[in-house]
């Protein structure tokens, strides 16, 4: 049922989308077809900004229909959906609140282990496991959020990296719980909602992950478009002015950090459930580093960045590692170096016109 939702426009979004097309580019003309209170151009402007853009429908429609075109690649697609959710999580704190992190894998890992252990010891129901994964990660997120409030970006990078390394060491040492280097084996999941069995081709896995991704994306889109989301952007842009505008800095940061942790936990949970295996790999440093690259590719602060980045990253990885599996890291590194050393600007400049059009279609904004 939830798999059908991407193509079913929400009522509010539907009318707003009509308004968007009707109003065209002029800022001060409100379509008569919209609600009566649109006399104010500013209100119409905001409504148009948050309305669903055609490209968004296209994006999700394509995600839903992709298995028809590539029925054999559903395992890969599942990985993309999970990586996309993980990147979305990082975008919440980095792209919206401006908190840098080199240890986001900590939350992915905790989510994965929580879901795995829950499935092995308590219940094999996927949704219950997912909730447990999100809860476990958000508890860790809440506790560690206080570590990222103080200090400079460098301190934050080091502290987040340190937390992730600590967890890795802990998981490695606490063999009785985590299975150490062998990982958690023998996870078998019940059918999703009692209806859809996990199959070897990854069909259920993909649609399950996509549905979770879509629902969490909807929630993120709503939250980042709220006054709360606006205040996060304020913090990212200029903390001094944010606090001079009455924004309570620490409270907001704790909230968004916890929220992002829950999202990453969900990604970890999905990973554990759909691959039916958890190993130390989920806590490795390269997870956090790759994630940064995903977001750099897609761009931060517009929610779709992580998703598009995940698609490109996984496709690129699929192609390259088919050719030279053990040197995949070289290309990740090269991409990072090129992107940071000006490639980002060049790409953005070259595609400026295209980007503007895409951004307009997606209704997002990229700094």
């Amino acid at each position, binding site marked *: 049922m939830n798999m059908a939702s991407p193509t079913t426009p929400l009522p509010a979004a539907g009318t707003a989308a009509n308004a968007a097309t009707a109003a065209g580019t002029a800022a001060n003309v409100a379509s008569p077809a919209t609600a009566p*209170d649109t006399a104010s151009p500013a*209100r119409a402007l905001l409504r148009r900004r948050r309305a669903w853009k055609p490209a968004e429908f296209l994006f999700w429609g394509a995600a839903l229909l992709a298995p028809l075109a590539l029925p054999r690649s559903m395992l890969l697609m599942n990985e993309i959906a999970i990586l996309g959710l993980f990147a979305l999580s990082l975008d919440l704190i980095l792209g919206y609140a401006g908190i840098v992190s080199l240890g986001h894998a900590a939350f992915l890992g905790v989510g994965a282990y929580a879901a795995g252990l829950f499935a092995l010891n308590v219940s094999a129901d996927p949704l219950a496991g997912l909730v447990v994964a999100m809860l476990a990660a958000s508890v860790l997120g809440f506790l560690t959020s206080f570590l990222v409030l103080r200090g400079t970006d460098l301190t934050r990078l080091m502290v987040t990296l340190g937390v992730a390394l600590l967890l890795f060491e802990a998981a490695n040492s606490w063999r009785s719980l985590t299975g150490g280097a062998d990982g958690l084996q023998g996870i078998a999941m019940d059918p999703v909602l009692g209806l859809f069995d996990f199959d070897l081709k990854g069909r259920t896995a993909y649609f399950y992950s996509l549905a979770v991704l879509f629902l969490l994306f909807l929630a993120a889109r709503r939250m980042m478009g709220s006054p709360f989301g606006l205040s996060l952007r304020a913090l990212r842009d200029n903390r001094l*002015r944010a*606090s001079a505008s009455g924004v309570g800095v620490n409270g907001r940061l704790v909230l968004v950090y916890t929220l992002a942790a829950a999202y990453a936990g969900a990604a970890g949970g999905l990973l554990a459930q759909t691959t039916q295996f958890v190993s130390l790999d989920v806590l490795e440093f390269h997870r956090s580093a790759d994630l940064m690259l995903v977001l750099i590719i897609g761009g931060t602060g517009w929610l779709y960045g992580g998703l598009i980045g995940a698609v490109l990253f996984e496709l690129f990885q699929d192609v390259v590692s088919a050719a030279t599996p053990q040197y995949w890291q070289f290309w990740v590194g090269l991409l990072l170096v090129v992107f940071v050393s000006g490639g980002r600007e060049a790409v953005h400049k070259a595609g400026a016109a295209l980007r503007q059009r895409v951004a307009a279609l997606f209704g997002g904004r990229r700094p």
Partner: protein
Amino acid sequence: MNAPVLETIGLVKRFGGLLATNNVSFRLERGARHALIGPNGAGKTTFVNQLTGVVKPTEGQIRLEGRDITGSRPEARVRLGMSRTFQINQLFRTMTPLEMLLLVLGEREGRGLRFWSRLDARGDLVDEAAAIAARFRLDDAIDTTIATLSYGKQRQLEIAAAFAARPRVLLLDEPAAGVPEAERQDLLNIVADLPEDVSVLLIEHDMDLVFRFATRITVLVNGTVIADGEPAAIAADPAVRAAYLGEGEDA
């Protein structure tokens, strides 16, 4: 009736051995147009930073409408009715003016934690933001990314954002600094047109602006108030002339 809206009592700030604020007792009357002037290094910025809560005073008290706010956090002071502009623009560069104003209005109305509400859920706030933008001559730029606005427009937004918090006390820190001639007049008009019930403290070097705007002037030198009074009296004050021209012991 005569109670000052903002007041400092015996304010002292030391940085190590340096006495940056020396026992400053200052009153801002309700509805005042008050300018704070002084040569470089007089301690104006340190004084303003204590008023707004960025720096903690070593001694003394700050009162806003009779309430002791000496230890309050900056964001709490905004909610209590005092907001400021910055000498160097502090704007949300990736937002539009409309969004920035909505942010300020939302925080003023205590909506900052509403994570499921929409930005345009309170239409009256949106209209108010649009009205403020119009008042500060930003209506044609309301949906432009702030980073791409001209410097003069950014200065205007700097004041608009402080104004949107609906302060009873507004601190303007060198509002005209760096604004090119062509955009200067707009800015001066905006400052002149601020509503009368807002008490304004202006920190400024530009004497044209100070004497056009202020009905009262305080002169700060080396962290100490050396004169306080009406513009004509300040202009004639020998101590002030000495501070500005280096007259005095050898003149």
